[in-house]
């Protein structure tokens, strides 16, 4: 029963210089339940981070992804971990979808030694090297050419991998995207530029930052699709389509994911000065990706309300357990301060501390040395 094919219609794609993928997506109960579990987990994880931030367990910048879960999960559904992903600071859920655990993610958020970057990265700097997730980047736009570089490596090695670089509607205006697209097209790099258009870059509505808000046409000489980013199936379909084109050697592709962020830009932004609460609750009612998927599950009889409830209860519990576990984890040892500055750093390398006496390693002018 879990594998019986089910066909589900998604809303049509808007196309630029290419045919549209089919709007009929073939899936099954196992897949759909899997997507739901992932998306629900993400939603709960971000709400957990929200609570931890408010209780001052998380500091600094913290950018939450709730509202956009379908993009991350739909993308992963169409890829393997041989493909590469790089995104910006709104990265917790990508870390999860690339194989990390909520506990490790919470630990990183709270600056624990057990975090995915040993507590040294924090919210914006999560990575899963072994599964080709390249982070987490705090500099708007940087991941665009970096992603093209990942694609360069796939092409150089001929390993069939495709790279996905995710960026926002605000970041779409960065010159390095334009530069990266040019080289990607000239060199036919297997890269998909994915604009997660959540309608705002911080407090700036897209029309105020972008003379051209058709982000899927931004490649100009690169084909693209505009996708319902609130539908995990539409995203999956589009990503599979784009990845296939890249793998076939056609060079870059552009995807615009039409989505929405519920939270403010970061935890310090209440998120209500530049949009009204009505707008946010309207999206929640009409287009919520998690609710939407739940409705599909029910409508297509892929799960019963009880099954879903059970899954949700279990997930919530797991999240509580993860938070509590991470809270108990130790802070990094102070010796970590001086580690990882360089790769293959000799253990007694001299590294200056805040004052000379608190420095690390040996001062090599010591008499007789």
């Amino acid at each position, binding site marked *: 029963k879990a594998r019986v094919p089910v066909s589900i219609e998604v809303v049509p794609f808007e196309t630029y210089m290419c045919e549209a993928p089919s709007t009929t997506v073939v899936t099954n109960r196992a897949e759909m339940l899997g997507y739901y579990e992932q998306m629900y987990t993400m939603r709960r994880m971000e709400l957990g981070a929200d609570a931890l931030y408010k209780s001052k367990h998380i500091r600094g910048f913290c950018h939450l992804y709730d509202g956009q879960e379908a993009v991350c999960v739909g993308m992963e559904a169409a890829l393997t971990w041989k493909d590469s992903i790089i995104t910006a600071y709104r990265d917790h859920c990508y870390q999860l979808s690339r194989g990390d655990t909520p506990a490790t993610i919470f630990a990183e958020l709270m600056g624990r030694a057990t975090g995915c970057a040993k507590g040294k990265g924090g919210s914006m700097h999560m990575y899963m090297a072994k599964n080709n997730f390249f982070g987490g980047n705090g500099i708007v736009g940087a991941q665009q050419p970096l992603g093209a570089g990942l694609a360069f490596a796939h092409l150089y090695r001929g390993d069939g991998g495709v790279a996905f670089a995710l960026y926002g509607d605000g970041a779409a205006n960065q010159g390095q995207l334009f530069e990266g697209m040019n080289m990607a097209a000239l060199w036919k790099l297997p890269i998909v530029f994915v604009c997660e258009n959540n309608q705002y870059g911080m407090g700036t509505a897209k029309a105020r*930052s972008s003379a051209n808000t058709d982000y899927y046409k931004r490649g100009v000489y690169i084909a693209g699709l505009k996708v319902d980013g609130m539908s995990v199936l539409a995203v999956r379909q589009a990503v599979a389509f784009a990845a296939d084109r890249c793998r076939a050697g056609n060079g870059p592709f552009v995807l615009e994911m039409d989505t929405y962020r519920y939270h403010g830009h970061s935890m310090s932004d209440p998120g209500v000065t530049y949009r009204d609460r009505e707008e946010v609750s309207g999206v929640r009612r009409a287009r919520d990706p998690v609710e939407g998927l739940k409705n599909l599950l029910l409508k297509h009889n892929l799960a019963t309300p009880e099954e879903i409830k059970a899954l949700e209860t279990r997930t919530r519990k797991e999240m509580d357990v993860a938070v509590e576990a991470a809270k108990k984890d130790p802070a990094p040892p102070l010796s970590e301060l001086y580690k990882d500055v360089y790769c293959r750093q000799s253990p007694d390398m001299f590294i200056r501390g805040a004052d000379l006496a608190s420095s690390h390693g040996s001062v090599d002018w010591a008499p007789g040395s």
Partner: protein
Amino acid sequence: TTMTVRDALNSAIDDEMARDGDVFILGEEVAQYQGAYKITKGLWEKYGDKRVIDTPITEAGFAGIAIGAAFHKLRPICEFMTFNFSMQAIDHILNSAGKMYYMSGGQFKVPIVFRGPNGAAAGVAAQHSQCFAAWFGHCPGLKVVAPYSAEDARGLLKAAIRDDNPVVFLENEMLYGMEFPISADVLDKDFMLPIGKAKIEREGTDVTIVSYSRGVHKALEAAEELAAQGVSCEVINLRTIRPLDRGTIVKSIMKTNRVVTVEEGWPQSGIGAEIGAVVYESEAFDYLDAPLERVTGADVPMPYAENLETLALPQKSNIISAVQRVCYRK
């Protein structure tokens, strides 16, 4: 009365915009959002779209536009949400603004202020914590200012906006909310502090502590504690990183015979290093009773975890122990 650094900056911009219609401000979220750190609060309502301008997240582009406008004798204030992002525009800051007056043989002034928070905040990790004081200070053609108090912030920002040279104005997020006593004259519409002059924040006789920005705060705290231990610290607030006020530094060291520098940036080729060089190059060297000590940010990218972050930044304790060493108390 007292004033926060945030209000000092806000009122300085407001004053100068009221005074001179050629002054305008642009940057990310400076208008409708009132500034990511609310430095521009209320200005968009007051001066409108023409003079308070939200830009896309394109630092190279808007810094270039701002500088071009300055070539044409407007007086832009170019806000970087933080100076970390100024790296995307740094070619323009140096090559288009900093060198223009010289390489045009004096034909083009570039009256622009680049401002925003610089250096470490709290919990924002490696990419959002860099101090650019040494970098910009390295470069002739730029003036580089780093205020500490509300008085500094107001007086120096007003002076920077009226200056006909490109001024890099390095603020500090951790100071924005800090409240400082100010005297009435600071509120004067024409109150300005001279760029290029340091301030002795606290007089003392045993050791000179030279710092800027948030380091001054920590230095003053350390001085307070050291006073209780019987060590009298003279604390110099540099205010300006370039041109450096050699005179004030040198004269103080000639009096105290000892010097400790305090900065949050990385040590190598930093501000403390330059102060050390000034000492070698002046008579102060002959007056030194102990080698200079630097207190700096640790020589590592900024870690996120709070315990590591604390260790990566100079603390009062580091300053105290450095002072004790130069005073041979340790």
